[in-house]
């Protein structure tokens, strides 16, 4: 390998190392470093009665970002509630295509109409969580997912 290419390639490998370091440090900063041990097997997805993806909370902890969007399938609220919480929340009204809450309003959906939430911030999903503990039980290595949810429920921030 030529000298210049050695420098370029070494830089690229250093970027890879930095990327890994940033990923690890984000998890540590959130106060939930054990989130890194998640297998990403997604078995917890089947367990939530509200259809919230518990793995989304793990991702949010791993990236130290309570505003990371997580998926849901069974949360139904009024459109005006959705806009108040997050105008960019992805919702579906009856059989219409999935749009942002503010777009649904602009398209003429009544503010009092019931919509199904399909994507919301992790901190908002935590506020809806009934804390049933099903996700904890579904985890093959029994990670305490509820701790992340309880933390976010408090003030919407990671306090560890």
């Amino acid at each position: 390998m030529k000298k210049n290419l050695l420098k370029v390639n070494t830089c690229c490998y250093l970027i890879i190392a930095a990327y890994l370091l940033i990923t690890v440090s984000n998890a540590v900063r959130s106060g939930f470093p054990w989130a890194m041990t998640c297998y990403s097997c997604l078995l917890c997805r089947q367990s939530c009665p509200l259809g919230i993806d518990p793995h989304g909370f793990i991702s949010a902890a791993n990236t130290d970002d309570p505003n990371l969007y997580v998926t849901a399938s069974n949360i139904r609220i009024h459109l005006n509630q959705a806009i108040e919480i997050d105008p960019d929340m992805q919702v579906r009204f009856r059989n219409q295509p999935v749009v942002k809450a503010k777009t649904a309003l602009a398209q003429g959906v009544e503010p009092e109409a019931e919509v199904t939430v399909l994507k919301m911030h992790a901190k908002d999903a935590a506020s809806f969580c009934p804390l049933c503990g099903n996700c904890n039980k579904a985890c093959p290595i029994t990670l305490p997912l509820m701790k992340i949810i309880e933390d976010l429920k408090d003030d919407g921030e990671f306090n560890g």
Partner: protein
Amino acid sequence: MLGAISLIFFILIMVASVRKWVRQDVLPLQSLLVIGSLILVGLSFLFNHSFDHSRFFAATSLHPITATIAGFMLAGAVESAGGFAAASQLLIRCSQGFLGLSGTVLLLVNVPSIFAMPCGRVWAAALIPAALMFGVELVKECGNPALMPAVVFSLIVNAAASCGPSPLGGIGMIAEGTGGFDLHSFSNPQQLSIMVMTVLVMVAMVKIVKLDVNICGLAQQLKARTFLPESAYFSFFLYVFGLAAVFIVEPPVPIQTLLLLLTALVMLVGQVSFRRLLSGLIIHPVTAMVAGFMMAGALLVTGGFDSLTALLNWFAVHTWLGYIGVAVLLVYIPLIFPLPCGRIAAAALLPGVMMFGQQVSLITGVEQCLPAMMVAFILACAASCAPSPLGGIGGIGEGNLRLKSGLAGRGLQLSILLSLPISALIVSGLGLSTEMFRFAEWILAASLGMVSGVVVNVIVGQRFYRPGGIFSGLVVAALMMVL
């Protein structure tokens, strides 16, 4: 628009690496993926597309990366303690008993999928040295030099595919979780197909690919590496029984912790220094995985995967392929573009596979189409890291056998191509189940085990009905069903 550009860019990068338009000594895959990710991030700013840095980092799964590192540490410790030299001696003694050469070979090459780890490299790194030493003895006994690559590459493909059915965070669990299927319901169909895949690789290496290996040179080099301190056998037993115990008991502790504990034990028993341990760590697959996840993150953020799904949909609706044709293509995409870690393709394409699987189920009226497609796809992802020319496990085998890079790829890909439909047929014929004792499944497993035993008997040059080989095949099948 941005999504389509990023998808095209990604495909160009992959093809450029695979076809060696950009040589690996100029820009290895890792550098290409890093530069590609940075370009995509730059493009998202250029197109005024909001760049969600959290989603970019969230695409990375640390589990396979840390499992690979921990596995290499353990394998490095056992290697330094002489454990694998001890293993080859044990294999030679085993081959002189009832099992014979064919039975021992069949048992050896199927160990990774019996005790499946979340990354096949954990077993591959460990057993390849033992397979090499045993292979030299095997060639001496049988006089067929093609047996050496047959043993090594069948072990490699078995190890590669084993991360699919692994209950310790294998790729199959991702599909089970995503699709809402029962835990471990995908394991048996995968393991049985892997058994067939392994034997097919042996046949391909002996009858079709016929690689020219310098056995004498290898034998001399391996002789120089063989030393057996007192603790060697104990280190090896600690390794095997430790991993088997973890696998059977499945404690609710991350596998990485257990691998580290085992490493510390082996270091103590074998008096292995930390420096020697570090020398066994192979950085390449780890960096390839991280770079792959970086690119996956960039594609996610720029909408590349959404474009792929839209494209496949378009093909399904507007071409003669239809949904069924595109579904088959989708299942084989990981094999067409084999990446160094199957999880990258699995994470990216699984939603698309689910969507197509549901469509195919609707069109055909056969409910099992969705799980059948998902199992075949997961197996393709898992096994694809064997033939990957971008730092796949096959490269480790080629390096150890002093072969030119890429020679074994076609044989590996052919075997995987032929065995994927078997997993789909098992699911569509027998359905999914987590029961340990299903009569039909056991009959199938026993039949496949017997056929494997017969084929390996013939490959090794023994009588086809030699009981050792057939018994070994039955034992392998039984262990796969039970564990």
